[in-house]
């Protein structure tokens, strides 16, 4: 799977049934129904959109990073990638991508991982896990159900020697990724507030979220 084949969308924002802007540092939860298409737009450039996916009818079925990357034989996501659940079922398929590479291994920042990675006194800083738990709580779902996430627009290369690094992003203002739901999915986003590494170019910015109905072509 090449990470340089960019595919543009056929959808017009004017026909979207949902269109909103999510500021950095905020969480979001929304049901995308089977057949609907969902787009995340990186408005400011190099902004990580940490995203969880669940079967909207049964939260015990959820996106599995390991099942997804093993099935496609590669660690990056782009057009054609099928995001699989822990039960091996398809949740969404990526249908357009003008960025070209999205991360599956970097996870979400947390108060505690910030302590480990940067300094014990960083615990006060806002993090994706706190946005995730707040968004999930509105649907009565707790941390027990929080699993590994996709980092759209984030660049986390692995080397043949087995090193993992956080590199400067390859996204830019206006780049987007789009996916079609195979079943009814609950999508949970933390628009990443991280200030300690280049995942947001040290300047967290808003993302735009759009949904098109299954009947729009």
């Amino acid at each position, binding site marked *: 799977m090449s990470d340089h084949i960019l595919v543009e969308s056929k959808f017009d924002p004017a026909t979207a049934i949902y269109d909103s802007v999510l500021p950095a540092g905020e969480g979001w939860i929304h049901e995308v129904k089977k057949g609907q298409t969902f787009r995340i737009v990186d408005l400011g450039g190099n902004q990580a959109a940490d995203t969880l996916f669940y079967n909207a009818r049964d939260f*015990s079925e959820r996106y599995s990073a*390991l*099942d997804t990357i093993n099935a496609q034989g590669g660690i990056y996501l782009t057009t054609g990638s099928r995001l699989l659940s822990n039960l*091996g079922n398809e949740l969404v398929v990526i249908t357009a991508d003008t960025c070209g590479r999205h991360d599956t291994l970097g996870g979400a920042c947390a108060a505690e991982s910030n302590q480990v990675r940067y300094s014990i006194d960083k615990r006060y800083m806002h993090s994706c896990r706190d946005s995730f738990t707040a968004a999930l709580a509105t649907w009565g779902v707790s941390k027990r159900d929080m699993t590994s996430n996709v980092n759209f627009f984030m660049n986390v290369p*692995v*080397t043949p020697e087995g*090193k993992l690094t956080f590199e400067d992003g390859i996204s830019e203002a206006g780049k987007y990724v789009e996916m079609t739901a195979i079943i009814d999915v609950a999508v949970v986003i933390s628009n990443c507030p991280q200030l300690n590494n280049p995942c947001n170019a040290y300047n967290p910015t808003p993302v735009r979220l759009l949904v098109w109905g299954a009947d729009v072509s």
Partner: protein
Amino acid sequence: MAPDTLLFEEELRGGASFAHVLKRGTALTITDLAGGANVPATFFNFELFVERYNMPDTLKAQHTAHLTRGHCIYSDMGRVLCSIIEDSVGWHDPIGAHSTAETVQAKYGTHSYQDFRNDWYTSTRENFLRELARFGMDRRDLQAHINFFSKVQVNSEGKMQFIPLNSKAGDSVTLRAEMNTLIVIDTNPHPLDPSAEYKPKSVHLRFHRVHPPGPDDLCRNSCPENTRGFINSERYFL
């Protein structure tokens, strides 16, 4: 290696699984008896199951996509659950998946209990869920795991490749518990292992008491992140 005291030891046969609460101050040495073993394992804080092994936090804290001597196994709470104090293998795989009943059947066919008794085909998923059920947990609690003794390499395009024969007969890895850690381990083959025959390998398990990590401990000092991870684990017990 620090002098230690044997607590107990046993052989875990191929296709079987085991769960044990590895107490702080004890260690588990897993030895590949025949070579080519795969040991999927996952970890929980025994006192609070909702704190568990976190794959991304483990990898990004140590800037690594493989695990070996000197590395730590992190929970989602910024604490070190276990540290790898000895390793003769050099590469354990944290990004490969694990087998399920469906993938085992598709790859190897079916060997039912009715026909094969305890030589039936099992899968890591079924074995993990069976072990978790003993502790009141279910698939909601099953997240990432580590495939000990296996190697999956990633090339510059991001493609994943399973490297066969990563571990030789007699190779071993030692995990020291820094917290009271529920460790769940299985012995089913790696799902990316191209071998067409279902041949899960037996491993030897040696549980022993070890000295607590001192100020000059290898795992504590292998990177500044791990020094802070040990601080978080040690504060938990204050």
